[in-house]
């Protein structure tokens, strides 16, 4: 694995040597065109922001939630050009020229006119997309009359799965930001603090570090000692009391790349400490087993078996999912993803959730590089400090 330690900052440096974004974009773009050739795709029509970012390198306006599918980016193999829906050139890298930009339309007829102006799309035979809507095939038929629409997901995964050294450096930087957020949240953890206050601390902190878009606002759970225990969701006004298990699960994004880590802490004071410490120990054992299973060649079934052997039974969230330009494939849950295969150079989020009524819940998560020599955790913390100091 290439050492990334000296690059872990967000600022430019006079001597260079940070993440070389020109190189990063050129490499991604080349990988996309290679994959199009391998999959015999004449064009790609992309709507998912992460796919658009991967091939275009453009810094897009971030909005919460899944974007409806639409033609935000068109990649044409024959001309080797990337066309982007953007009214302006700010945030657009120089390899995408003004002629490659098309404007925002509310009227489908105007959007169609924009697409019809893209050289090479009209004659495309096979067009790969990363989503569909019921009316889209008819719409695309007007812009590319002879095209068959095919699923580009496999081709896109083949270029996004394995990370370059520059991509890993971005993810490691995001990991450092997430660690910093976790430290800030932990320092605020005391009896009386609410979930909302902890989330407020989290998003404020990552913004001050220049990375204001959280991968997920579901980053805190003050787990109750009575009744059903849910993993983090929308923060509530529930406050932590001494002896509560509190999940802190911050993530961060740097240049679009995501990392995150989850740690559960016992709030100082209160009762039932040993039972809660035991639950936490179970979660940690499970996470260690899942992380250890993240080796090149391991299947989803292998990862699940490692988790189950360590006592894993409950998985309302994936046990492992990919990380790159946001959360991505593969997804391994307690039911799905048995045939997925981890490859060297993938980065995954490995996470476990254990809960027991009357005690609380624990979420533990790390960002892990699947390296040739075995798993390498990209997130770090003095993970036992909260326990030993309380």
């Amino acid at each position: 694995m290439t050492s990334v330690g000296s690059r872990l900052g967000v600022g430019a440096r006079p001597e260079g040597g940070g993440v070389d974004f020109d190189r990063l974009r050129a490499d991604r773009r080349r990988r996309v065109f290679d994959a199009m050739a391998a999959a015999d795709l004449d064009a790609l029509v992309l709507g998912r922001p992460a796919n658009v970012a991967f091939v275009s390198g453009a810094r897009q306006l971030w909005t919460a939630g899944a974007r409806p599918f639409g033609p935000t980016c068109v990649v044409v193999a024959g001309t080797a050009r990337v066309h982007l829906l953007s009214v302006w050139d700010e945030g657009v890298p120089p390899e995408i020229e003004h002629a490659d930009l098309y404007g925002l339309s509310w009227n489908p007829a105007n959007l169609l006119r924009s697409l019809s102006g893209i050289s090479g799309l009209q004659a495309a035979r096979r067009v790969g997309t990363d989503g569909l809507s019921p009316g889209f095939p008819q719409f695309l038929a007007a812009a590319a009359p002879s095209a068959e629409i095919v699923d580009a997901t496999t081709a896109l995964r083949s270029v996004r799965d394995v990370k370059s050294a520059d991509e890993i450096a971005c993810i490691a930087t995001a990991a450092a930001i997430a660690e910093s957020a976790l430290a800030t949240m932990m320092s605020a953890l005391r009896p009386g603090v609410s979930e909302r206050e902890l989330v407020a601390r989290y998003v404020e902190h990552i913004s001050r570090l220049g990375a204001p878009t959280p991968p997920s606002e579901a980053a805190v759970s003050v787990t109750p000692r009575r009744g059903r225990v849910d993993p983090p969701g929308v923060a509530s006004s529930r406050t932590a009391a001494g002896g509560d298990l509190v999940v802190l699960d911050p993530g961060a994004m740097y240049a679009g790349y995501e990392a995150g880590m989850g740690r559960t802490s016992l709030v100082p004071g209160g009762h039932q400490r040993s039972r809660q410490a035991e639950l936490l120990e179970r979660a940690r054992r499970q996470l260690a087993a899942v992380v250890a299973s993240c080796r090149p060649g391991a299947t989803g079934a292998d990862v699940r078996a490692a988790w189950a052997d360590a006592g894993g039974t409950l998985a309302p969230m994936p046990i492992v999912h990919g990380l790159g330009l946001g959360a991505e494939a593969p997804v391994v849950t307690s039911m799905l993803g048995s045939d997925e295969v981890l490859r060297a150079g993938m980065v995954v989020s490995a996470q476990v959730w254990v809960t027991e009524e009357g005690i609380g819940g624990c979420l533990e998560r790390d960002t892990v590089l699947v390296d040739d020599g075995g798993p390498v955790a990209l997130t770090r913390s003095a993970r036992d400090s909260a326990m030993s100091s309380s």
Partner: protein
Amino acid sequence: MFSPAGGVELLIEGSPIPASADLARMRRARGERLQTELESQGLDGLVLLGTSAVAYATGARLPGLDSGRAALVRPVAVVIRGEARPQLFTPFPGGAPPELPEDRVHGGVVADTEEGAADLVDMLHAWFPAGARLGADELSHPLAAALSDWDVVSASAVMGASKLRKTPDEVACIRTAQRINEMAMSTVVGELRPGLRQVDLTATFLRRIHELGATSNGIDPIWQVMPPSRGDGPWTTHGDIAFPTSTSDRFLREGDVIWVDTGIHYEGYASDFGRTWLVGADPRPTERQRRQFERWTTVVDAVRAGCKPGVSALELGRAAISANGGTKPWIDHFYLGHGVGTDSAEMPLVGTDLGERFDERLVMQPGMVLVLEPVIWDEGASGYRAEDVLVITDDGWAPLSDHDYWPFDSTPAAAP
């Protein structure tokens, strides 16, 4: 009751707008609307994957998620004709509405794999016979293939018709979202000074909305420094100004004119806050800037004067153009105004490239919500932009936003 006009009860189809929403009643009313539209449009059900559509159809509370995460293990809503309650698939079971029985709440859907799509479709078989007509908003390729037993059409007509006119409870949610947004922006403006970076303002904003009880943030907050002239700004496809461009660690400096634009969600409903702020040790608008603001006020007043049931979007657009001396007072790629609901921009859209015939047929009705956002561009001296929110009532309109125009009208209220 919410009655900003001072004691006058504001009615939507005869019902008052409550001070705070009755969420269970709101969800029930939305379910009834969806059922009415399924019936009248001849659909047997809906399969909804869009984040805002799921929020509308189920009332599920969802945290703010990056788009990749939101699409990886998806919330999905299934609405079955004849059944008042939806089926909800969600990775956030704690956000399911309390009245939804547990057997209607399922785990999130991995729609991008054949295996995940098959899991969902197995359940659909129990609810819909082969050949049933299903409305969908968004499909993955594996899901589209797995739905081949059914006649899948667009859900947009059902969703559009249901969402267009808000119930009084929905209006109350928008009002609450707007209030949280406004309070957070009051804190931000209290900290505004030269030397801060855009991301510093974001930090304060995001902290405040969560402290104040927002369900989620909606958009990376915009603090765009506006150039004096179009040519000084980014190149654009249409030659008009670029807005809104993304936030960065750009420093805000003495004399900068910034157009701010933020939005949050409360119980699924979006707010929309827009203002023009000046950066400075003692920011005071110049005479020319004051005239821009007056022009903006004139335009908004003219549009609001026309807001009542029966008036077309075309008439509202013409009122704005006339008040602006014959020039269209909005950005070429946007609109004079837009609706807001579970989407931050939805129908009614006023003044888009959908064209005059579309606007002519888009007639204001009680319960429609409008965010008015005219732009007064003053080439050489930047411009003024702000957004205000209103709802069409039975006999006119009522404001849903309530915020000062600092530093153009007065000093800012003390930050809460």
